[in-house]
């Protein structure tokens, strides 16, 4: 027995894991009867359906050969998502200017083509200035210019 369709296998594993979580948490909600569906009725039913799809997908992965999973692009993945998380952390603490600058610089590192040159720095300053003027001043999105760390 070995996995012949790794995509099917891992997708199935995700469905099954999600289904188990849905049913497990859902057991705390009242199921009710079919005439009076409780809050747990529909989610539990969906969880069961999802579990079936998960099992079918896993079983199929042992029977039918499928494409291999191409390697993850870890560097772009970590930098793009990490910079967004960093933005979320820095926005209330360091303020929108610092948070945006970090988002752009860390995010930009994900590309092989990014160079530290005049154009990039001008683009960075331009985007930050645009966002401050349009979103904070113009549309009034409540983002602190300077965060709690900087006495804003």
């Amino acid at each position, binding site marked *: 027995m070995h996995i012949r369709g790794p995509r099917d296998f891992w997708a199935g594993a*995700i469905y099954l894991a999600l289904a188990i979580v849905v049913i497990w948490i859902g057991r705390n909600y009242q199921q009710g009867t079919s005439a009076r569906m409780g809050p747990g009725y529909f989610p539990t039913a969906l969880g069961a359906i999802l579990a079936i799809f998960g099992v079918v997908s896993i079983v199929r992965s042992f029977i039918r050969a499928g494409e291999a999973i191409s390697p993850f692009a870890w560097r772009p993945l970590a930098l793009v998502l990490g910079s967004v998380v960093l933005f979320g952390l820095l926005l209330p603490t360091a303020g929108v200017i610092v948070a945006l600058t970090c988002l752009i610089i860390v995010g930009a590192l*994900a590309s092989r083509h990014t160079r530290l040159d005049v*154009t990039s720095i001008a683009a960075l300053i331009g985007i930050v200035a645009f966002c401050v003027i349009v979103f904070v001043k113009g549309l009034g999105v409540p983002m602190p210019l300077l965060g709690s760390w900087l006495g804003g």
Partner: protein
Amino acid sequence: MMDMLANLALGFQTAMSLSNLLYCLIGVFLGTAVGVLPGIGPIATIAMLLPITFGLPPVSALIMLSGIYYGAQYGGSTTAILINLPGESASVVTALDGYRMARQGKAGLALATAAIGSFIAGSVATVLVALFAPPLAELALHFGPAEYFSLMVLGLVASIVLASGSLLHALAVVVVGLVLGLVGTDVNSGVSRYSLGYPQLADGIGFVVIAMGMFGLAEIVSNLENEATRSAAIKHVTGLLPSREDWRKILGPIGRGTVLGSALGILPGGGAILASFASYSLEKKLSKTPEQFGQGAIEGVAGPESANNAGAQTSFIPMLTLGIPANPVMALMIGALMIQGIQPGPTIITEQATLFWGVVVSMWIGNVFLLILNLPLIGLWVRMVSVPYHYLYPAIMVFCAIGVFSISNTTFDVHLMALFGLLGYVFMKLGCEPTPLLLGFILGPPMEEYLRRALVLSEGRADVLVREPLSAILLAIAALLLASVLLPAIRKKREETFVSEG
């Protein structure tokens, strides 16, 4: 007939107000500008621009969003023609001959053909929406909860069958979407479901969070993975207007594309995508010189582009009258309407007559803007197309991050978006197309509600779904569709159809 004229008059009154004209124009312009940028499809474009419409009254917001949608689609075609980089699957076909034409120095002609075809198709489709939406809504008013539930099942199944990729995974992804849609406070019992103790999840997961994460961020990572150096071959675009000879060639394909697109656009799922593929193969079959297709045949641009735009327009019919999204973009529209406090459904035509007819008329106005905006502005689009991706994507990330934050002013959503970015990327890696997730997400809550009501009325007997004749018919169609995919012969044909889509 008189009714329709009166209704259209109401629509013109609404859509022609100075502010709504302006919002339509801004929408079309922004949609095209963002849509032109390589690597950003219409879903990401709309999700990104959605937050700026929240402050507007519902009519203006929907008018602007529709404008963004047509603009984004036209922008996608521009990118496909100029640099052979289709932003969405519907413009894959346009790239086949459009890019060839551009290489032969006829980029201007290809772009003008796309604009003219889109305009004619859009105008016809607008009339069709005005004609067919009211009777459909009338019919839908007689639907009970069982019929609605079955209709939604059919909608989901059809969208899966018509989309490309593995049936099993599409079904599973829809269920994942349905489950995600249930997160938050249950309307009937007041129980907070699956909120994991986060008060920010009490109102459910924001659909913009999911859309931007799965289609914005995940796309960026995926694009960076295969970062190629693009050659912006075309610097100047000349020779815009079609000659008399060209007109003779394109009118037929535009007409046929319009009919095909309008019919297929109403269908749930990849109606517009299917329409452009169908139109392309139809024109190739009808052509006296089929060998020119793929070598820069102008008919190969005119037909699919018209079909695509007609389909985009008629997909508003099921969205506005039944509250059922025919594609992920319509799912976004429904989400936007709900943020505005409007529940799309059959009553919208009577209760929100101004909104409905205003939007219908603005579709046509949007197409006029598209035409007069694009022909003179092509030079600007060409310059935007050639912006390198490594300058673009940090800006996209900035708009995603600020956009998501601005909806409910919480950084929680920003982090959640990153999580959905990860999920979207993993799904892509595993070959699971993530678009059905959005449809499921939007339909989760109403499906639960209609099922609940149907079962209350039938005193808990689930066979009500097949005992009501109309509901039974809808479910039977859904079952037939599923069976048709599983049958080997049709399955093979379906794989052939999508093979060129990659």
